[in-house]
């Protein structure tokens, strides 16, 4: 049962990364691909009706993690105290930037929110990547089941790690590049004209950065976290995840060449899901590896009581079916491209 919940939480996190990933990426390239106010509205309109629902996956995943693995929630969130709080501040700034921008039309109003939207999206992508890097590398948990990481120590992979070291920073940069690619492909698909074109160029450039960084980070990760090698040796079927990531990356390149914008974006979704599931598979059954392996949190040490996990499965499946229904409804009523003039006064209403 704990393994089932491990997979479900991983699925929710993957949903979050794929969905909120494209609107974070959209934010990160906002100032780069949209120059005029009209173009910026076009970019914002491309995520307008959906970004908020996408972010709900973070809350839903957080809540699910909380009741399925309370010990992980407690150790992880208090250990990552400082970066997590900064993520919250960034989420606040980003949320109000998107919300408040349209209320007023002034030369000193919109630029502020455009800048905040871009910077907060960009930093969030780096923070998420660094967080994932921390999970792979392991944290300084001790016998009490707790740890507290400073933002940085000496940037090396010693016993006294900080949130940021050369490894986690490189994962952060990879995450940023991956989401820039993901967001560019989204914007390219959802917009027209100059914005769509610029997004295509950014996406093409980001693709090469992603490719190089993926290879480097993957190779390094095998030495940083030995469990990954063990798991792939033990369950060769797990290779399906990295294969998925590679297939996604290849798909991005070839569909971009064919100018098939939709499939290029979908390939990028597959790449992200493949990368994330590879990591998750690599650390299983650990949920939070420790620098000293004997203190690692595993699904069994972190899980909640059996009854709660069982009853949770019933309402979770029911609730997810409902949520999927809403998402299909919203995305369908939002199908098609956003043109420059169309963003005026709310999308297609």
């Amino acid at each position: 049962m704990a393994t089932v919940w491990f997979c479900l939480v991983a699925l929710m996190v993957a949903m979050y990364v794929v969905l909120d990933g494209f609107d974070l990426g959209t934010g990160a390239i906002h100032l780069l691909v949209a120059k005029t106010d009209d173009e910026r509205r076009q970019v914002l309109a491309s995520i307008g009706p959906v970004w908020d629902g996408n972010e709900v996956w973070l809350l839903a995943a957080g809540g699910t993690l909380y009741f399925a693995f309370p010990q992980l929630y407690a150790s992880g969130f208090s250990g990552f105290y400082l970066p997590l709080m900064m993520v919250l501040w960034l989420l606040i700034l980003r949320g109000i930037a998107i919300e408040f921008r349209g209320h007023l039309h002034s030369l000193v109003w919109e630029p502020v929110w455009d800048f905040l939207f871009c910077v907060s999206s960009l930093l969030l992508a780096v923070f998420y990547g660094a967080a994932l890097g921390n999970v792979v590398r392991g944290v300084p948990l001790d016998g009490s089941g707790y740890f507290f990481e400073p933002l940085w120590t000496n940037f090396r992979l010693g016993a006294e790690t900080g949130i940021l070291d050369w490894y986690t920073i490189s994962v952060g940069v990879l995450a940023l590049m991956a989401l820039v690619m993901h967001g560019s492909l989204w914007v390219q698909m959802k917009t027209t004209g100059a914005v769509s074109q610029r997004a295509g160029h950014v996406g093409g450039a980001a693709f090469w950065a992603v490719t190089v960084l993926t290879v480097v980070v993957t190779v390094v990760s095998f030495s940083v976290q030995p469990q990954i090698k063990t798991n792939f040796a033990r369950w060769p079927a797990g290779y399906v995840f990295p294969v998925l990531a590679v297939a996604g990356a290849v798909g991005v390149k070839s569909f971009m060449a064919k100018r098939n914008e939709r499939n290029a974006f979908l390939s990028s979704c597959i790449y992200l899901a493949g990368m994330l599931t590879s990591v998750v598979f690599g650390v299983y059954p650990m949920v939070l590896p420790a620098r000293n392996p004997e203190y690692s949190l595993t699904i069994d040490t972190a899980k909640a009581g059996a009854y709660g996990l069982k009853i949770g499965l019933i309402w979770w499946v029911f609730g997810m079916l409902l949520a999927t229904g809403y998402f299909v409804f919203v995305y369908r009523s939002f199908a098609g491209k956003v043109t420059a003039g169309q963003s005026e006064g709310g999308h297609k209403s």
Partner: protein
Amino acid sequence: MNSALDVHRLHFAFTITFHYIFPQLTMGLALLLVYLKTKALRTGDEHYNKAARFWARIFGINFAVGVVTGIPMEFQFGTNWAEFSKAAGGVIGQTLAMEGVFSFFLESSFLGLFLFGEKKLGRIGHWWAAFLVFLGSWLSGYLIVATDAWMQHPTGYAIGANGAIELTSFWGLLLNRWALWQYAHTMIGAVQTGCFVMAAVGAFYLLTKRDEAYGRTFVKAGVLVGVVASLLQLFPTGDMQGKLIAEYQQPTLAAMEGLFESQPNAPLAILGQPDVQNRRLDNPLQIPGMLSFLTYRKWTAHVKGLDRFPEDLWPDRIPLLYYSYHVMVGLGTIFIAVQLMALLLYWRKKLYQSRWMLWVLMLCVPLPYIANTAGWITAEVGRQPWLIYGLMRTAHGASPRVGAGNAWFTLIGFMGLYSLLAILWCFLMGREIHLGPEPPVMHTHGSATPAAAD
């Protein structure tokens, strides 16, 4: 304020207090929006649709701030209260996760359609969008109140082998008696905020002689719904809430009432300052026997005072608890008086001309916010010294590795950020009210952010 524990408490108190300014209005307005949309549907009068659009814009601003300040709440259980989360996550994580899965997805999906999809959805479809937003926000309210109610009065659990608290009854958690009454009391409080705000804006338009047709609609809706809400707030919901406290949190009841000595014919303190050191109420103004009557429906009933309980079971901030409780009850009484007076004038067809009453309605607008906040302080400070009543003390719930310095750092960060939000909120709210229900055509809302507010 030097111990990490105190900073963690202040951290949560500050962020939750600020957060709740916004949901109390949106939950109340959600109901009033359904009222306006129903009116529009039944009368076919475009006036009500315009009124609903105006309030939808106000709703959108408040919802946005409510969402961004709400996200930190879910995370703070883990960041600042790790020991509590570790022990109780298997139980309260259920309700928190259900909130995300059942209400946030619903709200975020339909709010965009409600705010920007009116033409596309049609009359009936738009009514449904309003209704689903209402449903989502009220469901969210229930799951949060059920979480708090479990901390006030834990049910449906057992202590597992490793000392963790495990869920044993899903319905025991969800249908906790405390949760049902607390929910009714909380939501009616939110409706009161919605009603007073709507009535205040209406009164403002009538007093300034602009948009007067809307002014009348808003004042009428605020008063007609508000009078029912203010009565229900006292009885049965407030009354039942008091009875539950008398039954399960006896030291809390004594501290709330400033009753230091056990006695029959226990008096109800209307005014007075608790002097905890000397265990007495200074300058008391009391109604003899009233507390006995309210608690046990018998004037002579014996009520336990704080002297019956060891001091380590007393709530640790008795004056704060006493005052917030008295502020809440005092304001609740004022609301009943104001609303009944307004109803009387409405009934005699004098309400819209009665400038003094409109002044009162307009100036009352901060009071329901204060009353709701004071109510929550009563509930949460009253729960002390327990984090989970009878099971875990607040002193044992914080994150062991997060020191006071780091907690101060993030608390100050939140204070700065929330000050900024407050200023922006005041500016945008003032602007919407100034633009009014029939804004100039240029005012197209949310250029690019259809689904904007979650």
